[in-house]
């Protein structure tokens, strides 16, 4: 049996998924590693992890689709596709009937309007300033010396969220420290941070004419408190999938599989 891989080289994490090449089945293997600076190396390592999970040998992979900001650096790629197209395609696979999608990674947030087949109708991304993305939370968590995994659970216990006025992911750190000395509790500050990010995310997603069903992908989807804050702000449920972090890689793999089939049919005809 042959396999198709999708590799999403993100600014922070590189993700890979493995699909069967000929059948329509779902994810067989996943891999996730820190990107660091060797983008091609990260892609290889993520792929290896996915191969290990699926217990498949490297030479059985005969088509690789790369996406993410490092897509052009993946040496073994057969095709590169942008992360927006891939996220949209992956997301409809994971969360059917999706109309609006928000993908929030470490540096970027992208709001996407899509069709049932995953085609992107319109999208908006923040790309100048990291104020509305995962790094903002990471930085605040860092300043508060809270583990990233604990951010969500802690924020859920907030009683009186304390607003963060700084737009800058970096400057927010000192504002946060200020709050601590003012006696604000850590959950309240974390929740305040979430609310301020959610404000920016909400306006991003409204710019593509938000309509339900609405889904969230990207690493930030792991953060329960953020999801909850987003639901409150947008007044609609946020749909998730446990693999949503892999949406980009999955989309790449799916589009790659289709492309591979097109090519095979073409060469078979010829």
């Amino acid at each position, binding site marked *: 049996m042959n396999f198709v891989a999708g590799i999403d080289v993100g600014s922070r994490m590189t993700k890979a998924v493995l699909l069967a090449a000929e059948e329509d089945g779902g994810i067989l293997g996943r891999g996730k590693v820190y990107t660091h600076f060797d983008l091609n190396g990260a892609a290889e390592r993520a792929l290896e992890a996915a191969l290990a999970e699926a217990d498949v040998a490297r030479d059985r992979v005969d088509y690789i689709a790369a996406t993410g*900001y490092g897509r052009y650096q993946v040496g073994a790629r057969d095709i590169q*596709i*942008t*992360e*927006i*197209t891939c996220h949209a395609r992956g997301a409809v696979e994971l969360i059917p009937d999706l109309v609006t999608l928000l993908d929030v990674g470490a540096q970027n947030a992208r709001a996407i309007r899509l*069709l049932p*087949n*995953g*085609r*992107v*109708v*319109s*999208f*908006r*991304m923040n*790309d*100048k300033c990291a104020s509305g993305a995962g790094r903002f939370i990471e930085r605040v968590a860092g300043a508060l010396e809270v583990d990233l995994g604990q951010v969500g659970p802690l924020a859920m216990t907030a009683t009186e969220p304390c607003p963060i006025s700084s737009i800058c992911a970096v400057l927010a750190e000192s504002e946060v420290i200020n709050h601590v000395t003012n006696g604000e509790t850590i959950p309240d500050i974390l929740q305040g941070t979430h609310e301020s990010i959610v404000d920016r995310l909400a306006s991003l997603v409204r710019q593509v*004419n938000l309509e339900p069903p609405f889904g969230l992908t990207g690493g930030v989807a792991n953060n329960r408190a953020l999801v909850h804050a987003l639901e409150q702000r947008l007044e609609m449920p946020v749909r998730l999938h446990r693999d949503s972090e892999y949406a980009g890689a999955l989309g790449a793999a799916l*589009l790659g599989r289709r492309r591979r089939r097109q090519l095979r049919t073409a060469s078979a005809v010829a």
Partner: protein
Amino acid sequence: MNRLERLIDEARREVEDNTFAAVRAWKEEEPGRACVGFFPVYVPAELIWAAGALPVAVWGGGDRIEVEMADARVQSFICSISRSTLELGLLGHLDFLDGMLFGSLCDVARNLSGVWARNFPDTFVDYLHYPQNLRSEAARGYYREDLERLGAALGGITGRTPGAAELAAAIDLYEEQRALLRRLAAVRTEEPWRLGLEEQQVLVRAAGRRDPRRHNEVLREVLELLPEREVRHKDGVRVVLEGSFCEQPALELLRTLDQAHCFVVASDLARGLCWFKEPLRRSDDPWSDLVEAYFVHAEGSVVRHFSPSERTERLLARVRDSRADGVFFCTAKFCEPAFYDFVLHKRALDAAGIPYLAVEFEEKMSSFESIRTQAETFAESILFFADEEATA
């Protein structure tokens, strides 16, 4: 490099030259003539030419300037073109100009005229007010008087106050140029792979600083050579580019669009140099022809007040006429007028079901990764799914 490429390359080098060496050389060779700069978007170039001066588009320093002094004069929330243009002046790169014109475009351009007068007290600085009340019976008269006033003021620099004959001749010359530029734009609409967007824009921008007689020759030759160019037909989506009427994106950005398979088949790039969609109606009174050019022939733009629906209809017509798949809003960061237009255009496109994409650029940006990603996505969203939806 073949002849065609050489012609384009020469234009490229001239428009990328922030020291305006070629313009300075022109002035040397044309004793008795002057050079009058102008800030975007529009000034009646023919009036400047008729007064014996070369109109020079001073449209920022692009990505080839490190803004330092002007950063201290123009706040960070103002568009880059205002800053880099001022920097060019403060660096002395514009010392060959005998005058500098500003027109009513936006508050930035307007206030910049005063800032200019303060910083360059020895240069002739003028401000042209374009009437915004097009319904008023007094508007044409007011504008005409203002043009005559400007003509006389320019005459004060060159010693040649333009009369009707000079003005008519100048209009002829610029009409010829505009017709050539329209033909060049048509090549992009018909066969975008034949002429890169960047190449086309280089030729348009050169029109902003070259002796029109010379540049018309170049344009004619380019148009002759183009059909013979060996090209490969490429797959891509067709888009109308909107929002870069004033500050101009870096040439690299324009190249990026072609590479991302987004073919710009119509645009408002360098709007001031390509403001008229069709030949001007001519009469035996050239002053009145210039007035009518503004009142009747001007394409939708923020320089002139249009009813909102009229402006959006013009955009929709551009999409239709150029058989575009979508619209690419490429707006200079902090360009307020473009942002206001965007909201109204967006509503109209949503209603018409035309896809669009909005990105912002800055003159000095040198990384086009994000724009490339967005343009690629836009192309993918149309190309990737075309067959699937066709069969569905």
